[in-house]
């Protein structure tokens, strides 16, 4: 039967099914041409915004990943996108070494296929989900998010994925589920950093269920229009744009629904320095450094002043209500 009911799951068409890649790209070229003023001043302003939103070039490093435009509020930053060469070489992924350059050097050993994600705990539909099925579970979208690292630097990255809520709705959490725990891969054979004494392995992160259900919380499979490079957390990772980057676990293997707050990796390593929430907050300093400012990688010149860090990384309008009435100094 051609008509599909809700329970069978509606498969959204992806952009690439509708628009051939070459047509899509030539449209982008046209917009860029317009932005340069060739089409007249009146259109240039509008086109400039469009061109800015697409100011990066597909790096051609990984397989292309089709994606549609997002309708999620706040999910398309208009800021200048960080260059791919920076986003893919300046990484914190301690499983491959603690130096920022280590992941790009060492992550080639990671085997991303076959890959399954185990859904367990307080859900109606636990089980092992194959990557192929997860990729198709919902329409992938492009989301341009600011990424703020707890260390005081930031990037703007065009991710590809869908809201984690799509997956959560599909597996039907029980009423008793209050938190979601994310377990990432810890394979000493392919990850030279696993075994270093800096953290307990595997790396575990967690969110409150309502945080996990927020439409901005992204299950990402790609960036810059392509499949995630291994050093960025292939084949799938979390992106929670209003929290410090370490909350966004890479190379996920398990998603567990629980009724108690998960013991997260950095919190276990240094509870006074890294709280469970770890929302970006310029008013709550890290015990060892200020969080009031940040350096935008590749953009703020060597002698430029660092930029001010925004409350909830600039996503306060979208996520502020999640923390209404909470003392954010206490729940940092």
């Amino acid at each position, binding site marked *: 039967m051609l008509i599909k009911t809700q329970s069978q799951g509606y498969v959204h068409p992806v952009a690439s099914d509708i628009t051939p890649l070459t047509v899509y790209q030539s449209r982008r070229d046209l917009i860029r041409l317009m932005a340069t003023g060739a089409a007249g001043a009146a259109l240039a302003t509008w086109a400039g915004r469009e061109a800015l939103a697409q100011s990066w070039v597909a790096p051609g490093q990984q397989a292309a990943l089709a994606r549609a435009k997002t309708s999620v509020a706040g999910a398309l930053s208009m800021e200048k996108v960080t260059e791919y060469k*920076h986003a893919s070489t*300046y990484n914190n992924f301690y499983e491959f070494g603690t130096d*920022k350059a280590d992941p790009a050097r060492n992550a080639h050993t990671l085997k991303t296929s076959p890959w399954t994600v185990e859904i367990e705990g307080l859900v109606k539909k636990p089980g092992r989900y194959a990557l192929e099925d997860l990729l198709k579970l919902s329409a992938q979208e492009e989301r341009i998010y600011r990424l703020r690292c707890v260390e005081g630097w930031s990037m703007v990255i065009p991710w590809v994925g869908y809201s984690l809520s799509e997956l959560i709705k599909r597996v039907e959490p029980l009423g008793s589920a209050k938190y979601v725990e994310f377990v990432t891969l810890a394979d000493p054979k392919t990850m030279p950093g696993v075994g*270093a004494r800096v953290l307990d392995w595997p790396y575990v992160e967690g969110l409150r269920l309502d945080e996990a259900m927020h439409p901005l919380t992204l299950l990402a499979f790609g960036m810059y229009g392509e499949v995630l490079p291994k050093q960025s957390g292939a084949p799938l990772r979390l992106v929670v744009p209003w929290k410090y980057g370490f909350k966004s676990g890479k190379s996920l293997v398990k998603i567990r629904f629980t009724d108690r707050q998960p013991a997260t990796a950095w919190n276990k390593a240094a509870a006074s320095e890294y709280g469970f929430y770890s929302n970006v907050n310029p008013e709550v300093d890290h015990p060892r450094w*200020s969080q009031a400012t940040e350096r935008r*990688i590749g953009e703020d010149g*060597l*002698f430029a*002043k*660092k930029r001010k860090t925004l409350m909830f990384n600039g996503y306060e309008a979208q996520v502020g209500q999640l923390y209404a009435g909470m003392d954010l100094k206490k729940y940092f």
Partner: protein
Amino acid sequence: MTSAAIVGLLPRTKHWGLHPLAKPLVFVLALLPLASLVWAVVFDQLGANPAQALVRATGDWSLRMLCVVLAVTPLRVLTGSPALARFRRMLGLFVYFYVLLHLLSYSGFDMGFEVADIAKDIAKRPFILVGFSAFVLLTGLALTSFNRAIKALGGKNWQRLHRVVYLVAGLAILHFYWMRAAKNDFADVLVYAAVLLLLLGWRALRFINK
């Protein structure tokens, strides 16, 4: 030790260290790290976060120069080459030079030259305090590295004062250790600590055996 005194102590064959070009050569060599950093800035070779790369690189070179200057006396004694003493002051001032670059990089790139912010940071972060203390101590040594200052202090006092560099070595290692403690990654710290321990240990043994 003045040049005349050194010449008096020399064996008959002329040491390379006494060649008129030896000092300029060492001077140029000590500037090579700076040249490599300038090169890297100009040709954008410092990666995604050049500011941080410069803060770290100037810190690394401060430590390396400290090791070099503390190696002068052991080398002089062990190889019987009094001429090496000619380079000690210049190398010591190069330690200060790289430490100054390190401090300037931190103050400028990390703190935007905001004095109030720097003061707060020194109070807040013990490893910054330790690093800054080392800088203050080295400033005292740099300011007394002129012939007139040595004369005014008197040789014995001057020598006593300049033993503060041993304390600076300890502070520098503590500063580096603390910086790396967040990542529990001490491989590099251990290398520098071992070298400095060797250089200071040699002095301690010599003092005991006197």
